[in-house]
């Protein structure tokens, strides 16, 4: 076989142009600012860098940021699945309204969300007042961070699951039913495996969004050192003190860690997707 025969001719022209554009665009929009963060950090010596990123206050912020984001992602995965299920499966009056409501966290300025959540969950707020006698403190507490991060992440899970749920063949459930499976068995053995890939995608998106969230959290968390400071807040704090290198050092840690986590989740998602679609 000669070389020309094996080169397949493309039907649609413009591959070179569009690939070039894509790479340039991504380079300008994503890679350039990110590499600036790395470059700025390079101004630190290795020791300075290490001291900055392992300061006790910073370590505490990692724990909160990653812990609360993972927890918020998980909460959203669970409740987002419920919301998507209800929206797709049951026609009820006002469904369109509820459906539109899901997108609200996308559109709302995060500071507004933060202020609203703080007002509701503060000890003199509606919910905060109800929870206080139970000894549950939400605002100005780690729990508040979790609430804010859950709020902003919900649409990601719902919107990734909805189209998949809508296209799920009813025959799959009917087949399971004629074979004698109970509703629960059908859900667990037939439907859930189909939903796992989009659920993981939704989880990853909600998690990534939560990790980068700043606006809504700073209002509700109270920003207490060692307790309720998230990493983005520490970055801002360092910037305000003109410690640009310190700020970018934290940014680099966040970047690498979140990239690694997203890569892991994507791999998981690919793997679960391969099993169903290969």
């Amino acid at each position, binding site marked *: 076989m000669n070389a020309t025969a094996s080169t397949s001719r493309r039907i649609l022209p413009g591959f070179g142009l569009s690939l070039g554009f894509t790479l340039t665009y991504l380079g300008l929009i994503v890679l350039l600012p990110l590499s600036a963060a790395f470059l700025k950090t390079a101004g630190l010596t290795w020791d300075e860098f290490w001291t900055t990123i392992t300061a006790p206050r910073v370590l505490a912020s990692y724990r909160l940021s990653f812990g609360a984001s993972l927890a918020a992602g998980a909460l959203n995965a669970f409740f987002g699945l419920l919301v998507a299920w209800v929206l797709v499966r049951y026609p009820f009056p006002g469904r369109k309204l509820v459906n539109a409501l899901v997108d609200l966290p996308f559109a709302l300025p995060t500071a507004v969300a933060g202020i609203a959540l703080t007002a509701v969950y503060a000890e003199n707020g509606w919910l905060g007042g109800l929870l206080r006698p139970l000894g549950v403190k939400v605002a100005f507490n780690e729990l508040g961070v979790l609430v804010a991060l859950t709020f902003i992440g919900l649409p990601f899970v719902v919107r990734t699951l909805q189209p998949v749920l809508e296209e799920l063949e009813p025959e799959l459930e009917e087949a399971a039913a004629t*074979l004698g*499976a*109970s509703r629960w068995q059908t859900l667990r*053995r037939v439907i859930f495996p189909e939903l796992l890939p989009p659920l993981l995608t939704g989880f990853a998106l909600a998690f990534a969004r939560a990790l980068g969230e700043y606006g809504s959290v700073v209002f509700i968390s109270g920003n207490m050192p060692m307790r309720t400071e998230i990493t983005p807040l520490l970055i801002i704090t360092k910037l305000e003190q003109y410690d640009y290198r310190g700020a970018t050092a934290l940014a680099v840690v966040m970047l690498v860690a979140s990239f690694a986590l997203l890569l892991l989740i994507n791999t998981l998602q690919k793997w679960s997707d391969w099993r*169903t679609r290969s």
Partner: protein
Amino acid sequence: MSIEVQNIRKTFGPFTALDNVSLRVPSGRLTALLGPSGSGKTTLLRIMAGLEFADPGSGRIQFHGADVTNTPAGQRGVGFVFQHYALFRHMTVADNIAFGLNVRPRRERPSPAEIRTRVERLLALVQLEGLAHRLPTQLSGGQRQRVALARALAVEPKVLLLDEPFGALDAKVRKELRRWLRRLHEEVHLTTVFVTHDQEEALEIADEVVIMNQARVEQVGTPQAVYDHPATPFVYEFLGNVNRLQLPSRGFAQAEAFDVNGGRFAYVRPHDIELLPVQDGFDGELAQLRTVHTAGSVARVTCTRHHAADEIIEAEVSRQRLTELGLQIGDSVLLRMRRGRVFAEDFAI
């Protein structure tokens, strides 16, 4: 296990899918529900399976005398096969087949070893040995449908219901698979009902054909009976090609060839029409030859009647006979009908 359907009504909003349908499916036979789309055949099958329920207050479904009208699908002991297979994509072929056994309560569930043996046996039955560990997406359409069939058979159903089982397959595979289904039926002798809109499929493999139209059963009978003695003009037109001749016509030599009930149209199959040359006192319907198709086992010709030029008549003759006649397009020819049927009432079709 026989199935008895009594006065079943099913409506979807303003649409009537089944209008007081009664039917008896004999035990151990292969029965085809045949009809055009929208005739209610799939709805009837789904009601038999318990995937759909008849309108409240309408009739009953009985399996071998036992009332199952309100029994959920999982407890009816039916195996159901869907047109688009409905295989579980994340499970291997073996897991798909074993699904119905694996979901049984622990007390009734066979041991893993026994399940494996049963799966092996079913794979052999559907001729898919060695594919146990494949995923459904790695199989062809015909293989997937056989997996679906094995999965339905795994729970040892008392009746097997198939909804357009070959509808999504290409013509050649469809033909192979339906003959295979017929052979399988000879082996297992399970009461089987399958839905199809393909009359050739129904006539070829069914023991009994139920022809449905517009939410009603038009006729029930063996393939031979429904083909040779259609009860209504609809059945005539639906089963194979038929000519509809406005009466009177000189083509019917023997008056006893059909019962004249004073209808206005006669129904004649193309292979019941004879071509004769226009000469020496032959009698018949005078027509003009329009087209000839000889690509096939028989020659198919179309003619227009001399007295009603807008009426096109199709006839099938042997290719040898056509050569003997030496006809050219545009020549006149005499048509003689060997058999035909007139219906007293003319239905709008």
